[in-house]
């Protein structure tokens, strides 16, 4: 087998995201792809500009594949119906504030995709919380025409207005799980069927990456274990069921594609387990007890900041592994 190269690794991670992208597009319509195009275009332009200013070769840096990967993750994290400037801003800010201000690929402390996502989530909370209900079938829930209009102009038509509503996680954060089940269990179940498909898409890609030894098994294992353990503990109160936490939102995507970013994760094996586990714990805590609908972006950034410390502690205690 040929030794992998950095563009090769990034390319395979993007490839592994494709099932997830396909399921997303299938469930939510063309808006996902429009987001992807906007985020990708803005990220590449921003990167090229910064590299030009820094007097470095823009082509080599863009071809290393890390920017398309970050843009893809941003597009998957954003709701599928958005005016174009939001995904574009997320892509550009991810590259600029998440990566280039630190000196480019390999130097960044925080996951660039999460930085970009959180920047627009905090700037446009209203728009980011609007998810159309996922419905299976190629005639996606949001007609392509409407989606395109909304994407280009940002004007909410009656159709889009009607179709977008608060996500299950949103309602979990604002009302708690019992309130959700009171409201309409059938809708939730239908939704969770669709989420199952999405989780399956990410799981497929993640297993591919594990098989190719591109990601370290400790990271997804830690995230899933942390998520399940915390969700299980919260079952003692009125927490949502384990499957709900595992399959909704970004759990599997974070486990396989976000926490596994080697640049921002610790390098010691033990430190990686702790890091990933705490991402899962923090994410569920934020979901259940905090005010934000999904906690993975915050959890990842918090643990990014703690990664060097974890490495340091593990090394100091002599628990370093190869």
């Amino acid at each position: 087998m040929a030794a992998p190269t950095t563009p090769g690794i990034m390319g395979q991670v993007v490839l592994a995201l494709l099932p997830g992208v396909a399921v997303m597009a299938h469930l939510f319509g063309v808006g996902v792809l429009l987001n992807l195009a906007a985020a990708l275009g803005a990220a590449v332009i921003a990167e090229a500009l910064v590299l030009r200013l820094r007097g470095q070769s823009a082509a080599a840096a863009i071809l290393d594949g890390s920017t398309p990967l970050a843009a893809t993750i941003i597009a998957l994290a954003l709701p599928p119906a958005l005016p174009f400037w939001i995904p574009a801003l997320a892509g550009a800010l991810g590259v600029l504030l998440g990566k280039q201000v630190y000196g480019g690929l390999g130097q960044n402390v925080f996951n660039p995709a999460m930085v970009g996502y959180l920047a627009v989530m905090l700037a446009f909370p209203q728009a980011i919380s609007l998810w159309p209900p996922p419905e299976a079938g190629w005639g996606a829930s949001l007609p392509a025409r409407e989606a395109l209009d909304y994407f280009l102009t940002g004007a909410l038509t009656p159709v889009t207005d009607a179709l977008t509503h608060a996500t299950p996680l949103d309602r979990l954060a604002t009302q708690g799980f019992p309130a959700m089940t009171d409201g309409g269990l059938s809708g939730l179940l239908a939704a969770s069927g669709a989420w199952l498909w999405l989780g399956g898409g990410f799981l497929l890609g993640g297993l591919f990456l594990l098989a190719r030894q591109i990601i370290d098994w400790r990271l997804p294992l830690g995230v899933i274990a942390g998520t399940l353990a915390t969700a299980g503990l919260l079952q003692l109160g009125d927490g949502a069921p384990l499957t709900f936490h595992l399959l909704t939102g970004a759990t599997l995507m974070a486990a396989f594609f976000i926490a596994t970013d080697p640049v921002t994760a610790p390098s010691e094996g033990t430190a990686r387990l702790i890091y990933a586990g705490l991402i899962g714990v923090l994410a569920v805590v934020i979901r259940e007890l905090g005010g934000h609908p999904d906690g993975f972006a915050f959890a990842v950034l918090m643990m990014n900041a703690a990664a060097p410390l974890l490495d340091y502690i593990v090394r100091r205690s002599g628990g370093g592994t190869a």
Partner: protein
Amino acid sequence: MLSAVLTLTAIAGVCGVGLGAAGRRLAGQRDPVVERIDELLPQTQCGQCGYPGCRPYAEAVAAGQAPVNLCTPGGNGTVRAIADLLQVDAEPANEADSGPLIAFIDESQCIGCTRCLPACPVDAILGAQRQVHTVIADECTGCRLCVDACPMDCIHMEAVEPPLNSRVRPLPTAQSTAAQPQLRPGPLRHPEVEPRRGGVAVSGAKDRTRGQPPRSLALPEQFVLPLLDHSGAELTPTVGVGDRVRRGTPVTQPGRGVPLHAPTSGVIAGIERRPIVHPAGGTITCLILTADGADRPENPMPTLPDPLRSEPRELLTRIRDAGIRGMGGAAFPSSLKLADAAQCDVDTLVVNGVECDTYLTCDETLLRERADDIISGARIAARACGADRILVAVKSSAPEAAAAAQRAIETAEADIQVVQVAGHYPAGNERHIVFPTTGRTVPPGARPPAVGVVCQNVSTLAAIHRACFYGEASIERLVTVTGGGATDPGNYWVRVGTPLTALIGNATEPGCRVIVGGGIMGTPVADREVPLTHGMNGIVVEAPDEAPRMEQPCIRCGRCAEVCPEGLKPLELVSRIRAGVGVGEPAESIELDPMRCTGCSSCELVCPSSVPLSGILGHARDALRARMREREQAERARRRHEAQQAREERRRREKEEARRRKREAMAASAKQDRQSETTEG
């Protein structure tokens, strides 16, 4: 209101006391700044800074009364170090940094006035009244104080190249490797690489030269013999320009190691500095030998009557006199290695025929062609070092070599075992070959004799055989010429000192390297006129598709740490070294210690971003070694200076004492005179 104020005051008071206690208890034991600055100074005591010595200058800098850039002998390196220590901006040193300087006395002009002797703060000048003076080069700190003291103006400063073991190879950066791809350190691009824990599996990189019989190379017209000791010191030649030598004539003193022999008959045409193969580049003094074409042999050394029954001492002497150096790559004198092994009471000799580096097939070819010589050499070496067990280690992917060794053992009727090593790269490293052959583990940082094993390369053993049975000096070796750019790949018998151009010609592909050594650990050469030496087992001429990829940013994937056979963390090390953190300082932890890196480059083979890891780690090793040497020199200079001052102080006191005694004696005698006068009167 009052209670709130009181509460807050109480809290503030408690916190304040706590902080104070913590500050007192947890205060770090920091070196006083003066000591630390003094440590960075070169201890030349030259006074060029305007202060009467290094310590007074350090005190002035610490007190903020002197700028950090006044130390001329220390150069820019010292200025930077002090600036780093004090966290101020480093202004460059006052003068251009010309590297180390040493004083030279022109002996044709020296009149022996001894005025320079007291001027030297470290007593580095030898001389006496009306005798020609000379400078002890090792002790000279380059302070220039003697230059002005000389009334004849016969002392001048000369730039010297540091000895080989304290040259620091440049730190490779993305810019430097892009600008000079032909000098980029690191392995060739291998298409088939698979990471393993503690190594790399590389396949299919030896096929180009495998299985061909060795060929001989026509003698070139000129040979270049680097006068280089294993320790990096220079060998002293025993011949001068114009002397005639024959094949096998010793041309240097053994020094601390082994002598060098003339590779053919001819005339010494010159003694001059020539470039050599070294990661840090540079030149070294070389003998230039113009061949006469007749290749007349020197009278061979007397043959030992029965080498397999000779005394170990006798064998070691012969192995030294024949100039045998390790031919696996390190070129360490075999007599020293075997004598050291004998002192460590080794019981096993491992014949290293694994040749794990890629592209090389010379050891394998030698095993097939001269297995009898190798087995005989192994028995001699085992006798010389007192080992009673011999194991022949051969890579399992070279079955013909193993079969040849087996046949030779049966012919010799010796009790020797052949062990097939299935290991991946770097299985042939002498630290790593011990476990698969003997089951013993060499502790980190130790060498095989620590566990009773000594390893010898097959080429070395063949040379030992020829030296003991036929009295031949080691002047020839089998070398693999290969690589996609090589016009005539194969294994060649080549005399030591042959310029590489005689082997590989001058044709170059732009941006491609010529590498001496194997495809993984080899060193790129800047100049193809460099001569072949005992340790060179391969010459690889790179084709464009074998050149390493352009460097990309490290994504901290951790593959390097996974494959490192020494358990290091190259990813952490490299970011530190490139940021200049801790370079030249002892490592903070064992997995971040560049001195434990054996330079096997496994990390670089699997790096997806093609970071020149081996070159970066090599730079850190060199820097630390050079720094230690600098410190040692500074310490020696300080001691010599202090000794000089103490001597002068003693002399002054003795003089005073003598004067006082004289005064007292005079006073006493005067008194006596007076007394005698009064008694008389």
